[in-house]
């Protein structure tokens, strides 16, 4: 038990902090922070699988997150029949061309020896394929985007339940990771970092600008929800009576009936948003716990030992007959799939898909900071990192504001420096996170909760 003491204390502190937000700001705010903390935790588990288990740097987190979000749109949104009628055949045709290109290139790679002729053949297939796609897809895209552009203008999804899209998101991200892994995994560590960063940018720019796919920067709003809607809750009697029961003390104090009704209405509105967020938190917590159990099992299984051996000494592991390339690819796919799952969860939580918001700062570097701060190679640490850093990221501005006011209390309200500092309070979050990373890297390079090797 003693060895888990620091884990328990760290989580307790985090828990208390979130409760303090609930008491001092609002419960709704505290629960949004908690939800995002849980989503960040899933992302950090993904990144930790790659970095902590195998030492692979993947700066493409943003790309997988975006793909997970895309999956939500493609799975859960109702299909747009007019758009399918207008350009569906063209798009399916282009997809067919892509498949044909891949199959024929694979065939050539297998059948023909490495030679100039083979290169020319492949180049020819690619050029002809691209031309065909342009001819086919061009008019299709135009007619799809012309269908009611203010509301749809895209093909829509499959109209399936949104929870299913989480799995699809994981598969999308895993598929992308397979392609990236095939291209880039042979590179040196820092080359890999740059390559994945840039490939993620390509993915996001495709999602942003292909409007027929998911409306691009026009955003998809009003996605389905796996939990009840606030409006429905506010009108359902069981919920109102539940709120009444919880707040009976508050309600009793008020005498007049109309005032009591007003207060009750207000309480119901507040409680409905808290209830929805609680349901979300429950879903997310289930995912986090399942992932945690699976990853813990994997980490201390023979497979986990093999991965650590490969991480710590690639050449030795390879000499012992472990297939380093294959294991790296596998872990790259697994980690990315988890990140894709997190991306789908995040879009579900927000209820909207905004491709314009995917930026490397927020979705790659902050996630990496979480992994480093929390503890590389330790799942509990990675999750804690997600909590701590996200908490700081959100609460940094209020904290900074408080500190600025505290230290400039003796200055008059109109002092230029004070006004300027208060205006730039939101940017102190970068400063806090940056200094945090530098301090952790310097004085506790293993993170808050270091990796534990259990010897059997």
């Amino acid at each position, binding site marked *: 038990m003693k060895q888990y003491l620091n884990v328990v204390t760290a989580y307790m502190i985090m828990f208390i902090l979130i409760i303090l937000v609930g008491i001092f700001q609002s419960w709704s705010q505290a629960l949004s922070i908690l939800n995002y903390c849980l989503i960040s935790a899933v992302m950090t588990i993904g990144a930790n699988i790659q970095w902590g288990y195998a030492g692979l740097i993947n700066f493409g987190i943003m790309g997988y997150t975006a793909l997970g979000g895309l999956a939500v749109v493609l799975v859960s949104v109702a299909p747009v029949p007019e758009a399918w009628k207008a350009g569906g055949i063209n798009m399916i045709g282009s997809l067919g061309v892509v498949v044909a290109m891949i199959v024929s290139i694979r065939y050539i790679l297998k059948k023909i020896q490495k030679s100039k002729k083979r290169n020319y053949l492949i180049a020819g297939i690619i050029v002809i394929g691209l031309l065909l796609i342009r001819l086919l897809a061009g008019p299709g895209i135009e007619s799809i985007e012309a269908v009611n552009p203010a509301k749809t203008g895209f093909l829509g999804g499959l109209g399936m339940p949104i929870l299913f899209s989480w799995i699809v998101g994981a598969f999308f991200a895993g598929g992308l990771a397979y392609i990236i892994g095939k291209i880039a995994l042979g590179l040196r560590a*820092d*080359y890999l970092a740059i390559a994945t*960063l840039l490939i993620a940018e390509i993915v996001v720019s495709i999602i*942003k600008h292909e409007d027929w796919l998911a409306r691009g920067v026009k955003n998809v709003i009003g996605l389905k929800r796996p939990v009840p809607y606030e409006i429905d809750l506010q009108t359902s009697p069981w919920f109102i009576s539940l709120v009444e029961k919880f707040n009976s003390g508050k309600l009793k104090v008020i005498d007049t009936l109309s005032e009591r009704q007003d207060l009750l209405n207000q309480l119901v509105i507040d409680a409905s948003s808290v209830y929805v967020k609680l349901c979300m938190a429950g879903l997310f917590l289930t995912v986090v716990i399942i992932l945690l159990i699976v990853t813990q099992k994997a980490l201390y299984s023979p497979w986990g030992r093999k991965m650590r051996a490969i991480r710590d000494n690639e050449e030795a592991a390879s000499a012992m007959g472990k297939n380093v390339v294959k294991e790296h690819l596998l872990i790259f796919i697994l980690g990315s799939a988890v990140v894709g799952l997190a991306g789908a969860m995040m879009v579900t939580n927000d209820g909207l898909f905004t491709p314009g918001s995917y930026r490397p700062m927020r979705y790659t570097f902050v996630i990496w900071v979480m992994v480093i701060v929390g503890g590389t190679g330790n799942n509990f640490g990675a999750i804690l990192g997600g909590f701590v850093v996200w908490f700081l990221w959100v609460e940094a501005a209020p904290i900074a504001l408080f500190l600025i006011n505290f230290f400039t209390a003796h200055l008059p309200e109109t002092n230029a420096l004070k006004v300027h*500092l208060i205006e*730039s309070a939101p940017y102190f979050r970068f400063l806090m996170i940056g200094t945090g990373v530098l301090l952790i890297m310097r004085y506790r390079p293993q993170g808050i909760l270091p990796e534990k090797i259990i010897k059997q």
Partner: protein
Amino acid sequence: MDFLNAIILLLNYTIIPALSYGSQLALGAIFVTLIYGVLRFANFATGDMMSFGTMFAVLLTFYFQSLGINFGFLPTALLTIPFAVIMMILYMLSIDKFVFSYYRIKKSPPVVLAMVSVGVMFVTQAIIRIIIGPFDRRFLDGEKFILKATEFKEMTGLNEGLTIKSTQAITIVVTVIVVSIMFWFLNKTKTGTSMRAYSDNEDLALLSGIDPKKVVLLTWVIAGILATVGGVLYGLDKSYKPFVYFNNMLPIFAAAIVGGIGNPLGAFLGGYVVAFGEILITYAYKKFFTYILPESLEPNSLMQLLSTDYKFAVSFSILVIVLLFRPSGIFKGLRL
């Protein structure tokens, strides 16, 4: 005549912009490559360091303007570059002293240093945003154009106008000057040679009595000059916005890798490869073909390979292709 018109069209919309954008990227790419070659890590704070230097140039420009100092028809910002460079170098050296030197002495793997540079990136971004704010700022003054389209049309009688913005000319001239001085220093002076020796083989260089502290100091000084000059030129040409500078890190990395990371000449050329790739692939050639083809063959589509939305994606695709086929850069083995 049509042929000339076509040439001018291309010059105006692709070649001149690509040359100036390429120069800005090239300066950044040499900065990345130098840090990578000598200090041996991928510096993720590149964009923000360039932004930091530019910030001082912007602030000093505003200060000089308020004092009534200007540089005639040239932008005042050029006057402020030396001061901005000094601030930049001081900042870089203090970061090196408090952050990077610890890991260098410990001989940490490059990955750790790259992670540390992410921390530096966050801190630098915070400082920039706290000092100057996240807003878009234009600090170009002086003459805006060297050659205006209408003047050119009158001079030559052609249909197409040629515009040369003063910032484009300044970018190209300043880049040529800075880069040639740098290459002269690296190749012809004893200190420069010692730097290259250190970059090629650290242990051997130490054995032959090269002072590593001096090499590191010099690297940061050169890097500071390159970062500030590159950043100021970019800011003059477009505008100064911290977020854009952070994003510019990506094509700069692409340029450095395309040129073969660790190879300054490759990085210099890589900047132009990326810039020309981006602009040539996303340019709509319709008008060009209307000029050179007979009327019956005139195209009705835009004749654009990729829409301009994919400008950044093009440079990254170039990078991916290079990584696939020549991971050590397309200018492998090219040395001055």
